[in-house]
Structure formats: C-alpha cells, structure tokens
C-alpha cells in the first residue's frame, strides 16, 4: 500500500508536473495564457516578493533563456570555453530573471489585449498585443517573438515594444562592454555579477 502510494506520488509530481500550468502549443493562445497568468500575479494586493517569485517561475517555463543568452552574446559566444559557457548561462539566467521581473513588477494589473499572430517562418511566430493606455501611460504595442521550432512547446525569445527589440538592446549592451574591454568576456561576467548583486 505504502509502495503504491509512492508510485502514484512519483507519477503525479514528476511524470506529470505542473499539469495545471501547461501552456497551449498555439502561439497566440500561448501568449494569451501568459498574459492572463501575469495579470493574476500582478494584482496590487500581491507583495513584490510574491510577484518576483511567480514571474520568475513563469519565465523559466515560457522563455527560451538559453536561446536569448546565446543571441545576446552574439559572435563572442564562439570564443567561450566550456567552463565559461556554463558560467555565462548561470549568470545570464539570474540576470535575465532580475531584469524580467523588475520590468514587469512596475505594472500593476496591466490591461493587455492579444490581437493576432503572424507566422514569419517555421521557427518563428510574431504575436501582436496591446498594452492599453492609462491616465499616466500611453498605449504600448507589444509584439512577442515566439520560437516554434518545437511546435508542441513554443517559447518566447524576444519582446518587441513599439518596434524596438529588447533582446537586441541587451545584445548591444553586452557587446559594448566586451568591446570596450578589448574583447575580454570576463569583464562582462563581472558586470553581470555586479548587476545581480545590486
């Protein structure tokens, strides 16, 4: 009996994890679900710590963090050895989650409408959405670059806000730091650590 209980528990928690939080494979529906989840997290009554924790969990499941990490490093990633690559991915994930949560926790109860989706090629779909205007902030167009190479598990790779790619802006920052230090990638690691510990 006890053995059966453990087998069932194993299946429930490890084989079918987070069944309630499985996302749609349709890119537009996928983004709609993320937006709805974010709205619930970002209600005013939730503490900042709670919002940060939940948004981080959501990002880990829905964003292709490794893909963004590779993109952001540009051609410099080819110069990394295995240890540096592992260190970079570790630092980037922490950096990304901090940036992601800090950007979103500023929005309380955002009103976002998911409008349409356009397949640009078999690997990418752009999902268009609109952050509605408030008394203080104007309306903002937000497009989501969804990576669909695995059609059953879409992942976000970029947010394009009013036509401006955040991933590209990150890439320019990283390149600027590396180039202004004569191509020394470890200086980027130092900057990332400083930012994470800020």
């Amino acid at each position: 009996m006890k053995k059966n209980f453990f087998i069932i528990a194993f299946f429930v928690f490890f084989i079918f994890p987070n069944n309630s939080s499985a996302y749609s494979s349709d890119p537009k529906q996928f983004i709609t679900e993320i937006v709805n989840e974010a709205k619930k997290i970002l209600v005013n009554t939730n503490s900042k710590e709670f919002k940060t924790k939940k948004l981080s969990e959501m990002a880990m499941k829905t964003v292709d963090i490794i893909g963004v990490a590779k993109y952001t490093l540009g051609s410099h990633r080819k110069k990394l050895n295995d240890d540096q690559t592992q260190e970079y991915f570790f630092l980037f994930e922490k950096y990304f989650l901090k940036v992601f949560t800090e950007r979103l926790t500023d929005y309380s109860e955002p009103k976002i409408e998911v409008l349409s989706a356009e397949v640009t090629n078999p690997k990418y779909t752009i999902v268009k959405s609109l952050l509605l205007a408030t008394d203080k902030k104007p309306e903002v167009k937000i497009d989501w670059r969804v990576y669909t190479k695995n059609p059953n598990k879409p992942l976000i790779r970029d947010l394009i806000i009013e036509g401006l790619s955040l991933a590209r802006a990150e890439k320019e920052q990283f390149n600027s730091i590396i180039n202004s230090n004569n191509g020394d990638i470890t200086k980027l690691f130092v900057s990332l650590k400083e930012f994470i510990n800020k």
Partner: protein
Amino acid sequence: MLRRFIYITTFAFLLQIGSAVAGSTGSESLKKSGSQSSAPECFEGVSRAIFSINHALDKVVFEPVAKGYRAIPHPIRKGTGNAVDNLRSLLTFSNNILQGNFSGAANTAGRFVINTTVGILGIFDPADNFFGLEDRGKEDFGQTIGYWGASSGCYFVLPILGPTTIRDSIGLVGNVFLDPVYQITHNTEVNAGIGNQSYSEHNYYYYRGTGAVDFRAKNIESFDTLEETSIDLYASVKSLYLQNRNKKIMNSQSSIETQDDSDWEEIDTN
C-alpha cells in the same frame, strides 16, 4: 553667414547621398540592409561624457519638471499634447511631400485642418475620432534623407538634445527650413505679414519645450525601468535610438518588417 553655411552643408550632403538615391527606393534597400539598426561611434569617449552630463541634467531638471507636469489633470495634459502634436504635424507634412508620400501628406493636412478648426486649435482630435484620419506618426528631415537612401553615419550624443547620428544631426538643421512653425516665429518677413507681436521666436521654444516635457512625462516609468535594468545605459539608449530611427525611416508599424529573423537564425535550442 550661419544660414549660408547651413545651406552649403545641407547641399553638400544632398549631393553626397545623390548616388545612393539613384536607381533604388530607400525603403527596399533599408529592408535588405542589416546595418541600419547599428552605427559606429564618432567619438565614444566624448559621447559618453556628454551622455553622463545629460543624464545628470535630466535627473535635476527634466524629470522633476515632467513629474510636475504629470500632476496636471489628465484631460489638460492630453489637450496640451494634442495641440503640440497638431503644430508638429506641419513639419510632418513637409516631409511627407519630400518622401513622395502624397496619401500621407493628404492625411496629415486633413488632420491639421480638422483638428485646428473643429478640434479647437488641436486640443481635441476629431480627425481620428470622427473622420477616420488616424495619426500615422511623425516625420522629420532626418527620416526623409534616410528614406532617400542616406546611411546613418556615425553615432554621437549632443548636449541636451541627446542621441543622434550624422544624418539625423543634418536632419535637425533641415527641420529648421521645413518647419512652418519655425519660419513663422523666426522669419521677420513672414512676421510682418501676419503680426510680429503674436509670433515671436520664444513661442517656438515654448512649443518645442512643451512637446519635450509632454514626451518625458509619458515615459517616466519607461526611463526609470531602463535605467534600473541596464548594465550599460549608454549602449541601451544607443540601441533603442537607432532601432527607433530605423523603424521610422521604414515607415513601418510591423515588427515583421523592422526586425530581422536572420539575427536569430543560427540559434537552435530545442
């Protein structure tokens, strides 16, 4: 003397880009070029120093002013922003024409006439709300010469005015000649015709200053977040500036046109 220098500089620049214009439409060549959202630095050290001074000035002067402006009731702010945008549309109209975008020019002119009259000096926007003439965005001379095919040239930062490129700084000079509001407020011959007392030069700077404060007030949180989440704020601002200019020159509202998938091509993770 200064005016002659500006004429010569602008003319020389137009001659320089003439060959780029010939035989291709600017929009097409821009779409194919991957370099338009990046630009080399003219003098990075100096630009970073000016950027730091501008940033400090923003903290001490512009941001507090924008926050004060934010305290004004929303309908008044909205009306002010609309009125400034309405005047600014005259510069857009000139550039619509120079880009050969006659439907855009008709839209801009229609919006200006309706909003200036029915919309009470542009405070309201009946052109969009009742006549279906929606705002298609601002145009300036930097965008126009980019549309003609001029590349951005190198990037630098101007005191107070902020990020720019060689092309866009020449565009700033061109705007002076193309902006009817500038001409009316600065040109004595025009003033003599329509009343010198009402259209003095400082009115132009009030109008431009109000536009800047309105823009800053709409973006207080965005600027703060960018500052908090950047490990190199200078590089972040440069990237966003160049992306924004590229998007405007392409006259595109679509990310599919302005963003290049090839940047992501070789990154496969699943």
